[in-house]
């Protein structure tokens, strides 16, 4: 099987190791990985801020980049939700682009969703001894409806002890430009999330969205808290950073 990796701009620029892990994990499960080089961003920052025209132009760029791919996998619940839920709506009144947007939406999968639901991976075949807790991101759970897939995989990682995170469904306060526009409220939400993480006594925080982890990691660092923050793909890659 051959898939195209949608890296996402945030991972491309700030967290390339996450995408490298995703590639290694996919290859380990027999998937051939292709990375179309004209991909950039999904347009979510513009869409969520109300810049629909800008979002449309950016979306067209992404649609073009993956035109030749049969299946697209992305290590981001939020960007997958943007493509799958918002793209068809973004082009609802555009007879030329609507079918292309719908086609991309139909072939795009979030990373853990792809492993569990498409590849049927039950045992990720990896060891990562740590005490960890998992952050569920809002766009992935409520938008995309992908809730249990990361846990299905993580439960089978040898040596990994998973501590249930209280108030798992509560937002961490990232919210894209919200984090900057309403920084005080955003930080209060992060602090509450961090308090719950600390209650679990986990030493590793695992997530499926680098947006949330960028924000939580930045807040943890500001508050001088030495928690390791990893993407699911990195854990399935044996914790490589």
């Amino acid at each position, binding site marked *: 099987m051959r898939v195209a990796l949608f890296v996402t701009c945030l991972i491309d620029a700030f967290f390339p190791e996450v*995408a490298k892990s995703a590639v290694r994990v996919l290859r380990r499960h027999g998937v051939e990985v292709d990375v179309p080089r004209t991909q950039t961003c999904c347009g979510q920052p513009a869409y969520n801020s109300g810049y629909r025209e800008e979002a449309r132009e950016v979306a067209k760029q992404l649609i073009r980049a993956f035109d030749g791919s049969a299946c697209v996998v992305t290590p981001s619940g939020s960007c997958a939700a943007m493509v799958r839920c918002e793209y068809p709506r973004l082009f609802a009144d555009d007879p030329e682009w609507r079918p292309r947007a719908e086609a991309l939406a139909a072939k795009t999968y979030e990373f853990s969703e792809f492993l569990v639901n498409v590849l049927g991976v039950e045992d990720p075949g990896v060891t990562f001894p740590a005490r960890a807790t998992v952050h569920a991101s809002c766009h992935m759970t409520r938008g995309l409806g992908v809730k249990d897939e990361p846990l299905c995989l993580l439960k089978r990682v040898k040596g990994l002890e998973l501590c249930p995170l209280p108030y798992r469904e509560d*937002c961490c306060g990232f919210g894209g430009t919200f984090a900057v526009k309403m920084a005080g409220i955003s930080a209060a939400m992060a602090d509450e999330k961090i308090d719950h993480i600390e209650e679990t006594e986990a030493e590793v925080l695992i997530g499926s969205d680098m947006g949330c982890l960028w*924000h939580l990691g930045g807040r943890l660092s500001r508050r001088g808290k030495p928690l390791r923050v990893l993407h699911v793909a990195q854990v399935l890659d044996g914790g490589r950073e």
Partner: protein
Amino acid sequence: MRTSAERSFARRAQQALADSTLRAAVRKAQERFRTGKRNAEAELGHWEAWRRLGEAIRRHTIENLDFYLEQLADNVEKNGGTVVFAATEREAVDYVVQVAREEGARRVVKSKSMVSEELHLNRALEALGVDVVETDLGEYIIQLAGEPPSHIIAPSIHKNRRQIAELFSRVAGEALPDDTPSLTRFARRQLRRAFLEADIGITGCNFAVAETGTIVLVSNEGNARLTTTLPRVHIAIMGAERIVPTWDDLDVMLHLLPRSATGQKITSYVTAISGPRRAQDADGPEAFHLVIVDNGRLDILGTAYQDVLHCIRCGACLNVCPVYRHIGGHAYGSVYSGPIGKVLTPLLGGMDEWHELPHASSLCAACSEACPVRIPLHELLIEHRTEQVTRGTRPWAERWAFRLYRWVVTRPALYRRAVRWARRLLAPLADGEGKVRVQIGPLKGWTAQRDLPLPARQSFLDWWEEEGRKEAARQHEPRTEGEGRDGERSA
């Protein structure tokens, strides 16, 4: 609509964030409500099906609102009530004031009504010299405190018991103990006197059943029932959208409302009133007035925001909202707070006045998920933001930032270069650990609260390309030596 003298949302939010008593009280109440709701949903079963049914009823009603408003008005009048349709806040207030004047009213008792808060009705009646007493316990508390409600169904959610004891002690003229039974006993004594002396009772309306012209009130304290039976005159005030066509539809709403609001299967009292006292009735008011308030609602019909008129004011969206949890209701500065307030207030009060509210959301969609009639609240917030952009009212710096963003990310080669520049630009600002902490320019929004890691030395796409080149070179090497033909090919 406005409830605060402080006009900046940012400053109101900042004040609220600094108030730990407020935040603790809101967190505790929110916790109780949302856990209660979850349990009630599970106990009822098929919650999603109930939600879809509720949505369908609300959609049908709002799509045919003209018909049902007329049916309701006809039936209320048939029952002996008076119906007035108030297009504006002014018309609604003037009518109530006129009734109070004609009746020579000296005291008015009220049961909880958000629409009366929207109209600032108490202020107008008090200006007339009428003594107005709020009889819902929460409303009574905030009336004593001189504050607006901070939650749609629990107006004094932001206060703890100690603060309430202080307020009551001031009225009592002596120090009251701060245990709940003592406080309730005190309020009950005060309110009982008010009920007996009142000339007019004013209530809201949870639902108006069009087919019989019946006003339905859903309450827990019994005060709504006393408000509608003891005074000689009953005035019910409703938002024009609060209609259900039939009693069967009401049945569905009564399944959804108390469970979503407080986690109750049913409230202590569900009161249905069809007009004033009839000859054979043992009690009830001599006159019944129904004030149907438009005040901007009907302008929402036919717009992208029409679904907001489906709202049944249960407060479930407030009870799951993380922003509400941290800043409470007053910080929104409007009568309606929380997610529904962020959508509704700019529609009723004007976007220029309320432009900040739609941005006070991380778009986590907990509100849309909690809504018993499936209003896509977070999508409507994006709709508001989009309208602001279309109307050109966003700050120029933001507009240029998104123009630049589009220009860069629609050009892959430029995007790749921009990612490389980003590290070069930020690197001089980083500390020894590679973290940017300086709070300058556009970075400040992020770095005021969090550390910013530097972009990676090599982006993933650059790495991938390099790997590809290495791989190609590896594949080429042995063949060039062995067959001596690849030299020509690669040339």
